[in-house]
């Protein structure tokens, strides 16, 4: 973990025990307008009370099916949109407040937190050579043109693109894997502490995916980074993450250390998700799918537990009360009545052990 002084400047303010980012009770609802006067006819509860911590130096994986709110959570985390409710604390400082009130300004927050998207092409300016794309943000933040260019070359080398042959290329002259390296380089240019990766390898071929995953592991080590890694690929998340968060219909249903989630999944949804992975071994073929039906829509989520319409263990109590997050030990927790002693579910206690 030798972060070279020239590339790592951000100060660790809160100390190692202070989570790098703490999100509490985040909500984002989108009104759906209709009718003659554009009145709100329904509400998409895209993110509906999400709380989690990102610890310093870890990789936190976020999994879930499409529409469960992963990307909306990402956009909130990046402050690309304002949450309807909830708070964000970055290394002990309230995000969006000013120094007088003991906070961190949005401008400074956006320097320390960077993002890499799935679509490597759409997120690069087609008319700029890649060195200029990478140098752009540092220049905006007041770094001289020549220094920014030097930094761009240094980072290009770090992501495995020799500056001599790549610096002046345009995005269309690169392969998908090379473009994703450029996106990663651009995210590194401001020397951030946290990088949010939303499906960063999903559009890449397997042989290239492995190259980019190795690169991400190396860069994390080299620059002392913290990652939030969003993906629908459970195998990739297992490979890269220290802790994992499982989302369903705008909420967190389970979170914990990667081993706990993959070896002892507690929430019926997590179990079904893991059991849905296709197996490369034809001797292990299934005959019955773990779940039936599609994930329902976050416009009118079911009452009580949102998973109850697909859950094989659903009982009366699941429709009546929303399950709380029950601790299962070692930072592992699940929001299911079966995990909460005394919840009134007949299977209670089978999990808590």
């Amino acid at each position, binding site marked *: 973990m030798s972060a070279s002084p020239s590339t790592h400047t951000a100060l660790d303010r809160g100390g190692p025990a202070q989570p790098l980012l703490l999100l509490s009770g985040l909500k984002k609802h989108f009104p759906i307008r209709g009718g003659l006067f554009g009145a709100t006819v329904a509400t998409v509860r895209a993110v509906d009370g999400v709380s989690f911590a990102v610890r310093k130096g870890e990789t936190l994986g976020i999994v879930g*099916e499409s529409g469960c709110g992963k990307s909306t959570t990402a956009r909130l985390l990046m402050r690309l949109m304002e949450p309807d409710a909830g708070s964000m604390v970055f290394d002990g400082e309230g995000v969006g407040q000013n120094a007088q009130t003991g906070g961190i300004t949005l401008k400074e927050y956006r320097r320390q937190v960077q993002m890499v998207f799935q679509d490597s092409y759409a997120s690069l300016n087609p008319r700029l050579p890649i060195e200029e794309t990478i140098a752009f943000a540092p220049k905006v933040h007041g770094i001289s043109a020549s220094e920014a260019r030097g930094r761009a070359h240094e980072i290009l080398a770090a992501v495995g693109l020799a500056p001599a042959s790549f610096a002046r290329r345009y995005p269309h002259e690169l392969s998908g894997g090379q473009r994703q390296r450029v996106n990663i380089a651009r995210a590194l240019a401001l020397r951030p502490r946290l990088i949010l990766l939303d499906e960063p390898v999903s559009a890449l071929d397997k*042989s290239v*995916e492995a190259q980019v995953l190795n690169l991400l592991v190396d860069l994390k080590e080299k620059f002392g980074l913290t990652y939030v890694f969003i993906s629908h690929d459970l195998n990739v998340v*297992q490979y890269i993450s220290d802790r994992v968060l499982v989302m369903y219909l705008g909420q967190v249903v389970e979170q914990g250390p990667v081993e706990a989630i993959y070896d002892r999944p507690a929430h019926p949804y997590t179990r079904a998700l893991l059991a849905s992975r296709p197996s490369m*071994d034809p*001797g292990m073929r299934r005959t019955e799918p773990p779940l039936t039906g599609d994930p329902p829509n976050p416009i009118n989520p079911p009452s009580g537990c949102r998973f109850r319409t697909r859950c094989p263990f659903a009982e009366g109590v699941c429709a009546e009360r929303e399950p709380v997050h029950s601790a299962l030990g070692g930072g592992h927790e699940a929001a299911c009545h079966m995990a909460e002693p005394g919840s009134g579910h007949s299977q209670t206690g089978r999990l808590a052990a």
Partner: protein
Amino acid sequence: MSDVMERPVTATANATPLVRLRDLSVRFVSRDATMHAVNGVDLDLAAGEVLCILGESGSGKSVTLRALMKLLPKSACVTGGIEVAGRDVQAMNERQLQDFRGSDVAMIFQEPMTALDPVFTIGQQIAETVVRHECVSRAAGMARALELLELVQIPSAKRRLAAYPHELSGGLRQRAMIAVALACKPKLLLADEPTTALDATVQIQVLLLLRKLQEQLGMGVIFVTHDLGVAGEIADRVAVMYAGRVVEEGPVGAMMRGPLHPYPRGLLGATVHGGMRGQRLTTIPGAPPSLEALPTACSFAPRCAEAEPACLAGVPEPRSPVPGRSARCIKVAAG
């Protein structure tokens, strides 16, 4: 791991295969460049067999599949033999093709809206196909549509007959597209990544459904995917494509346990699966070649750790160390 799940290779020497591709080549010629998308593909498929074509983006999977239905654009120059159910596809005229598509062979896609018409209900679309191909009444067509929606396990099938494609969820739309494809009981189903865009819990449902329908209806299936897990769930045999050629072919279990060719071996090593935490992933360096020039040597040589000068002498011929398996690599024993 066991071979129990692997069905015996059903093609015998004298039976005519359902699909017979011989030296299929497809070039796309434009003013400024020629793309050698497919460069001499030989493939056989027995009736009732599932073949997965595996390969990375641009390796020629979709082009091969489209050639089988004569669905390629005019700019494509197609050569070689294409036989489906004993018929020469290349020689068919427009009218023959219309009859052939739908009744002998049907295709499903990653994006169901490319196959479904947004302005007609699901029931109308299936009934229309049945009426056109089987010369039955509209009422009979509708009855068949209901049967098909039940066959693909769409809940409340009767009500869904009147639904428009956009009113269905992603998984149901995929099932509706499968129902349309099966309307005239094709002998051959061509599937181009039909589960790639689906969520994990829905993907496995659709894969299991396809496998069940294939067994029930005795269809031959060619299933294109870049996902080794999908092939593991559904294939009897796999053909791995690289730069427009099949570089390895054989039963799925044998290939997964021990690929013969360095490319699928690298692909298997680079595919992340459980229990790899903390390990450095093996990668295949570089990227696939540009297909602007017809390869004159092993196309994988620039990325192959085992390459030697002899690999550049010419395009390796398929070698078959054991019956039913083959690979285009000079390091593989000829058997």
